[in-house]
């Protein structure tokens, strides 16, 4: 059009007002950006860089390329605990999905129908999420204690003494029990998210289906669940990130070695031992290997987030 004809006063003066604005925004952004970059983003990338170095002590300074990864994936000293921790973390995650998030969906569905006392249940279900994981872990450790634990006492009291078990001492049970305790604590989060999601479904939609003669069960499967897909996606990715980063609950209930015998070892506890505390039998922290473990965790998370982004984008594209 004809704007080419405009005289070019703009470059000279206009800069000052625009620059003034820009200066203000940059000034407002810098403190947050600086702290975030220096203490979160930069260490993350620098830690990954360290996975290509080796050396004793605090700062690995000897460049070894992919040697740390080769060690981690092939040397049985590292490989076995690493694959064990990875596998355990996956199981840990699956249990959360099966128990925590299914219960959450159930509670949310129940709470979505209006009845008196809803808010009390809501408050109760969410309460454990406000506790420290450490407190939860220790508390349940006491309750599950085989000798004086209250759970076994209770089972005996109701005549189910035969079911009493050393819950946290049994290598086949420990991981599952810990995952259940963690689900107990966090079930309030998916409950609230699903509830929020259910609240956005217009009543007319449900009513229309009811008029068409659909049963409550059918309505749940064919209307509510498909509409909840975005929330399901968010719940999944948050659970995923949380689980692959979980440390506190295992630390509290099974120590940094995921007792008994690494049965409850997760990636985070494994990382803690390799990088900070020193892994048996080396017994000395190896920052290089630790950085490689962290990088592997990061890549796993990245893969999960990518899957989530792709799936949710495809869904958005469809509708």
């Amino acid at each position, binding site marked *: 059009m004809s*704007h080419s004809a*405009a*005289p070019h006063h703009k470059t000279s003066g206009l*800069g000052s007002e625009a620059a003034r604005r820009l200066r203000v925004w940059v000034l407002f952004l810098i403190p947050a950006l600086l702290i975030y970059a220096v203490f979160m983003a930069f260490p993350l990338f620098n830690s990954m860089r360290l996975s290509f170095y080796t050396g004793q002590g605090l700062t690995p300074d000897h460049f070894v390329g992919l040697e740390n990864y080769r060690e981690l994936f092939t040397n049985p000293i590292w490989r076995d605990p690493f694959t064990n921790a990875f596998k355990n973390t996956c199981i840990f995650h699956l249990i959360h999905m099966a128990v925590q998030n299914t219960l959450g969906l159930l509670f949310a569905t129940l709470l979505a129908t209006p009845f008196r006392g809803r808010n009390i249940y809501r408050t109760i279900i969410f309460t454990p999420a406000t506790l420290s994981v450490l407190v939860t872990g220790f508390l349940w450790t006491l309750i599950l204690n085989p000798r004086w634990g209250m759970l076994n006492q209770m089972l005996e009291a109701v005549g189910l003494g035969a079911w009493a078990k050393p819950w946290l001492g049994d290598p086949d049970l420990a991981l599952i029990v810990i995952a259940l305790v963690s689900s107990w604590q966090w079930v309030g989060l998916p409950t609230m998210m699903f509830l929020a999601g259910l609240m956005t479904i217009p009543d007319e939609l449900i009513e229309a289906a009811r008029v068409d003669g659909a049963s409550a069960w059918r309505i749940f499967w064919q209307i509510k669940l498909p509409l909840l897909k975005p929330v399901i996606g968010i719940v999944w990715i948050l659970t995923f990130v949380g689980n692959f980063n979980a440390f506190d609950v295992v630390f509290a209930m099974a120590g940094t070695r995921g007792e008994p015998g690494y049965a409850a070892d997760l990636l985070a506890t494994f990382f803690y031992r390799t990088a900070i505390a020193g892994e048996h039998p080396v017994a000395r922290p190896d920052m290089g290997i630790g950085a490689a473990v962290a990088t592997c965790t990061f890549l796993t998370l990245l893969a999960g987030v990518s899957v989530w982004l792709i799936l949710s984008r495809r869904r958005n594209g469809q509708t």
Partner: protein
Amino acid sequence: MAEVVLKNVCKRFGDVVAVDDVNLTIADREFVVIVGPSGCGKTTILRMVAGLEEITGGEIRIGDRMVNDLAPKDRNIAMVFQSYALYPHMNVFNNIAYGLKMRKIPKPERESLISKAATILNIENLMHRKPGQLSGGQRQRVALGRAIVRDPDVFLFDEPLSNLDAKLRLQTRTELKKLHERLQATAIYVTHDQVEAMTMGNRIVVVNKGAIQQVGSPLTVYRHPANQFVAGFIGSPAMNFIPCRLRRKMDATVLDNGDFSIPLAPALGKRLQATGENEFIFGIRPEDIMENNHNTQLPVDYPSFKAGVHVIEPLGKEISIDINTGEHTMTALVSSDSKLRLNDTIEMVLNMDKSRIFRTTTGETIGPD
């Protein structure tokens, strides 16, 4: 007080040209109305004058200062926003006081200024309410109060009445005009409502697609629209546009629309021919299409034709009818005394004195004068 000058002002948002080479001079103490359809760039023009939007090119002057580089606070303007933009967490008093506080006006002076403005706007009893507790009309007054209390050089109004109901809008229109006379400040008033523009402006600026189409008094833009856009935008019901072909009929030049032909004065005919085009748009306002009866005192050679009545819409004083001539449908206004009924066939005549002819290619007005 101050004159406002926009010189070759442009604004682009990425690839979108929102304002395209606008030149406009608004005299000191003048009340100018900018009118145009929604999205034509009216708000953007105001925001550039206010300094809220950087200009991509050109120059804006307020008084004798070039303000391109000045921040809004240094331009001594006041703006009434479309949404009123009252501070929701402050009561009415503090809303009005905010601008004075920012300018460090001492408290006693501040209070007397505010109470004066409150009296003018009749909002004294609302001072302790929050915006959420006010009706639309009251909010609008508070927004006005916030503007006038600062005694600015220039008032900018961005569709200040668009959120009011019809009755209140009518009433506020006149009050605003009175207020302007009293304040004696330059005012730029933006609206998408052409009726509002016609009644409020001494001078109105018609804008379309970011460019000024015509500047003039309400009567000028109504009677002598510069182009087809202005002709169609101003006036309600809108002007009828009939595509025609230029033809020679015996000695005369006529515009033929397929249903009937419209004779042209020889000079006009020559002018149309000189363009080398032969498609034109014939424009006629509904009130200039009349029932052809003995009351009509039009020259006999004005074109008349028969048409069927398709739609009848009583407007009160008049009746708007849609008539069909075969190829074309037109809207006409007839007196409410008329005994017309649906599907009647009537004879109509065009008042050629008030008709307009536009070039199909550019839309510009080419005749009759």
